[in-house]
């Protein structure tokens, strides 16, 4: 009854995405004071375009991504360096290159690209080499260079995500556990020492993050207001269009980075838990795709990319709930903005492609 190509679309995950994005548009409608324009309408159009893009990607063979991984990585690295140079010439921080028809933000693309590149590296690495230094340093270089370039932009949030995405793939590739545990312990030991070397104002910033109420009008303002919005929502929220924190402008960035607080104020804990559950389902889908994939590159990529999306969600939610500093990581499908949605949809599209190839293989065998 239903044509085969349509029936073969990954409907379950698409329905999940549609649900999250639709909810996002509803929240944006409220954030604009009960208005479709300007945010909800733009967001809808974007979502449709990027969904089509993701579905197109999903039809590509996985080998294409594998072969493009390292060249694509190189292109983005060059772009990152260019951005740095242009910024240096113009003075001030610069994150994008103007291509004429669009503004390219290479650090944003670097998030999925690092996963592809590191995954490709380990896919190509002979199994016997896995327990040697040769399995570590090239990956560290692949991650470290873009990480450092993004960190000096400065963009702590994106740099952290690049690092986390790459390290995740390293972890999945099967490097010895003690490397990760040792590094983690070392970092934990260094943090207090590093803290004492920070300037007073830097220490103050860190302390304010730890206790935002100590400076409610200054640096802690965003976090304080966000917590007030979430906390005052209660279990079932103040009701659609009834949020005071967002509508009276107390909540800064209520339609972008802090959209979750806008949502929580009106939909309460119930809305928040549902949204978190929806994201968890998405992550479960990604991990399961990875688990049932045989191809080394494909499974590393699938798990790495879904973890990248996970980092978006986790960092953003921790930020709005006062568990992480304000680092400017948007909430996928909810926050208004094009480039993050593009990145996330790239991730989803590639995972879909992996999913599709896996299914095909299984059907072939079956």
């Amino acid at each position, binding site marked *: 009854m239903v044509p085969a190509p349509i029936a073969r679309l990954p409907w379950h995950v698409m329905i999940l995405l549609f649900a999250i994005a639709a909810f996002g548009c509803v929240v944006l409608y409220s954030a604009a004071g009960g208005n479709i324009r300007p945010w909800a309408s733009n967001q809808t159009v974007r979502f449709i375009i990027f969904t089509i893009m993701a579905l197109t990607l999903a039809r590509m063979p996985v080998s294409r991504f594998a072969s493009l991984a390292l060249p694509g990585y190189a292109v983005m690295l060059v772009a990152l360096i260019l951005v740095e140079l242009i910024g240096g010439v113009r003075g001030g921080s610069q994150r994008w290159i103007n291509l004429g028809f669009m503004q390219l933000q290479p650090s944003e693309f670097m998030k999925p690209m690092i996963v592809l590149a590191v995954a490709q590296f380990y896919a190509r690495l002979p*199994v016997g080499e896995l327990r040697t230094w040769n399995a570590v340093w090239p990956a560290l270089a692949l991650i470290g260079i873009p990480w450092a370039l993004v960190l000096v932009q400065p963009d702590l949030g994106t740099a952290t995500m690049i690092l986390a995405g790459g390290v995740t793939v390293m972890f999945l590739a099967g490097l010895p556990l003690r490397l990760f545990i040792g590094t983690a312990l070392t970092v934990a030991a260094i943090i207090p020492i590093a803290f004492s070397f920070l300037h007073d104002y830097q220490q103050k910033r860190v302390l304010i993050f730890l206790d935002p109420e100590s400076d409610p009008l200054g640096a802690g303002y965003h976090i304080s207001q966000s*917590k007030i919005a979430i906390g005052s929502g209660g279990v079932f929220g103040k009701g659609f269009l009834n949020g005071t924190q967002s509508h009276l402008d107390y909540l800064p960035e209520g339609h972008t980075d802090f959209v979750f607080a806008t949502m929580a104020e009106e939909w309460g804990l119930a809305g928040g838990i549902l949204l*978190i559950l929806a994201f968890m389902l998405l992550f479960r889908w990604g991990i399961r795709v*990875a688990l049932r994939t*045989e191809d080394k590159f494909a499974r590393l990529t699938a798990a790495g990319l879904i973890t990248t999306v996970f980092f978006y969600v*986790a960092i953003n939610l921790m930020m709005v709930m006062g568990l992480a500093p304000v680092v400017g990581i948007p909430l996928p499908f909810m926050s208004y903005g094009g480039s993050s949605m593009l990145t996330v949809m790239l991730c989803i599209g590639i995972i879909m492609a992996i999913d599709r190839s896996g299914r095909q293989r299984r059907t072939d065998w079956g």
Partner: protein
Amino acid sequence: MKFRKAPRKTVTEASQTFSFTRRAMVLGGLQGGVGALLAARMTWISVAENEKYQLLAESNRVNLTLIPPRRGWIIDRHGRPIANNRTDFRVDIIPDRLADKDATVASLAKLLALAPEDVEKIHEQLEKAAGFQPVQVSDNLTYEQYAAVSVRLSELPGVAPSQGFSRFYPAGASVGHLIGYVGTASAEEYKERKDPLLITPGYKIGKDGLERSFDKALTGTPGAKRVEVTARGKIVRELTTRSDTPGKTLQLTIDAGLQEYAGRRLGTQSGSVVVIDCSNGDVLAMASMPSFDPNSFSDGIGSLEWEMLSQDDHVPLRNKALRGLYPPGSTVKPMVALALLEAGIPASDRVSCGGAMRVGNTLFHCHKRRGHGALDMRGAIAQSCDIYFYTMALRIGMEPIAAMARRLGMGQQFDLPFPSQSYGTVPDPAWKMKKYNEKWQAYDTVNATIGQGYMLANPLQLAVMAARLATGRMLTPNFLMGAKRTPAASLGASAEHLFTIREAMSAVVNGGGTGGAGRMTIPGVLLAGKTGTAQVRRITMAERRAGVRRDASLPFKLRDHALFQGFAPFDNPRYAVGCILEHGGHTIRNQDSAPIASDTLSYLFDPQKATEKLVELEKTWGGTPAERMAAQMAAFRVQKGLETALTPDQMNAANATVAAVANASTPSANESNAAEEQD
């Protein structure tokens, strides 16, 4: 290169796949764990801490503004307002809504005729101001100015005209010292009371006089307006409004008409008049002139006006009725006489006055150099003979005199609703020993009996003394209408003695005595009283030989104080009066203490006639106190070189008034030689 300590573990495709599966599941588990953590965190914030954050959200959203309560009225004994509230029109600027700052301020300056210094002040405040905190452009506008701004509102975005209440004192300067004034609370006052009302725009507290003493009762309960505001302070809508409860009305025993009359009647003198109701001690008037206009104080006085007031040698900033201390001079003679009578000296005993007498090593003079001849008590009071009192006082000593002085209210601090009062001294041997560690001498007694030396009193005490002599009861002054009072105790003096004193005091005014100038023109009403002159300089023997210099020829600060205490009608006392003119010197007949006291009392019997007389007098003094103050201010500005913009006409007018004031206060114009006495 291999990990040095790495165990020899062969990694195969299969083991790598197994490790991947395990690690991916761990990763998925971690993700689920973080998800659970986030859900738990959210539950904590929105359920456990819900109340706290709801409160915070409410305090964000709702802005509570206080509406200053209208201040209670102060009314006189007949219900006439002494202090009330006037509708006040004001214009503010809301900086955030300004479109073109300079143009808006410029057009406001034109509409409201603002002075350049005001415009500068507005610009200064606009620089500092942020957001929706209003910046005051001008208050106390006329309705026309208010309307002129209101109709142009569409062209003036960010300008907010509004209506409030401001304190108004209809009688102006004549109630300045009595009522005090109001003003915005100072930073210290706010620190002390921490009441947010104190920093609410438009709210003022009592700063002096009765306004300060009864501040609590006069302040009502503030109203409140709850409004929903955005983060930038923009008002979205009004939620609820509770209107204010005005303060209580305060009714005084003061007769507003008399108070104003007394203030005006003081003319160009630096002095004060106190009138007391003899039936119960109610204070009917307590004027101290010159004074300040409490209206201009309440609006925030200009620095120029302040400078002028504080430089004036007539000390307009001091409430002389309570805070001025003067040697009472001969006004204490009836009191001394009563002490003599009570001590058993008959009124008929005579003393022969030869113009001077020796006490110890010092020669004490009578004010009449040739002497009065033989005088009994009545004559001695009427003629204010010093020698009679020197002689008689030395007979009974200081103690009974000091005791009588205290019973008559001298040196007594009364329980009055004023921030401060100076209550003077009644000297006696014990006091002198304590204060100076010196023995009391005969000349101390001599000095005290004529109200000189250590003895000091304020004008209110003078009036109280008159009231007590008039009634024989220890009346205490009272300012609150209907206040609970214990009936005044008797002085303990015999009625016969009191009659003798009153009769002698009548002779001072009506029997050819020193107070003849104070005779009343009200049919059937005789004023009784006692004049006084208090020296502020020492007269040397050399000067005495050459002839004592007339006050008129002395600088203002060296002239004698002129005093009068008395009551009327003499045979049935209803009102008592005390009047002290600082450095009055008895130099101008119509501005001497006795006529001022007499005219002030006559207002109580025939207000119309008294006012007609006053209006005639004021023509020679340069107008009403308000007109004279305006002229003084204009002259001061000219002197300061500030008012070069005066037109020649204005200049002439100002000069003419100043000249008239000057004429009225120099005695050459109407030299009176009314120096009834000199001690």
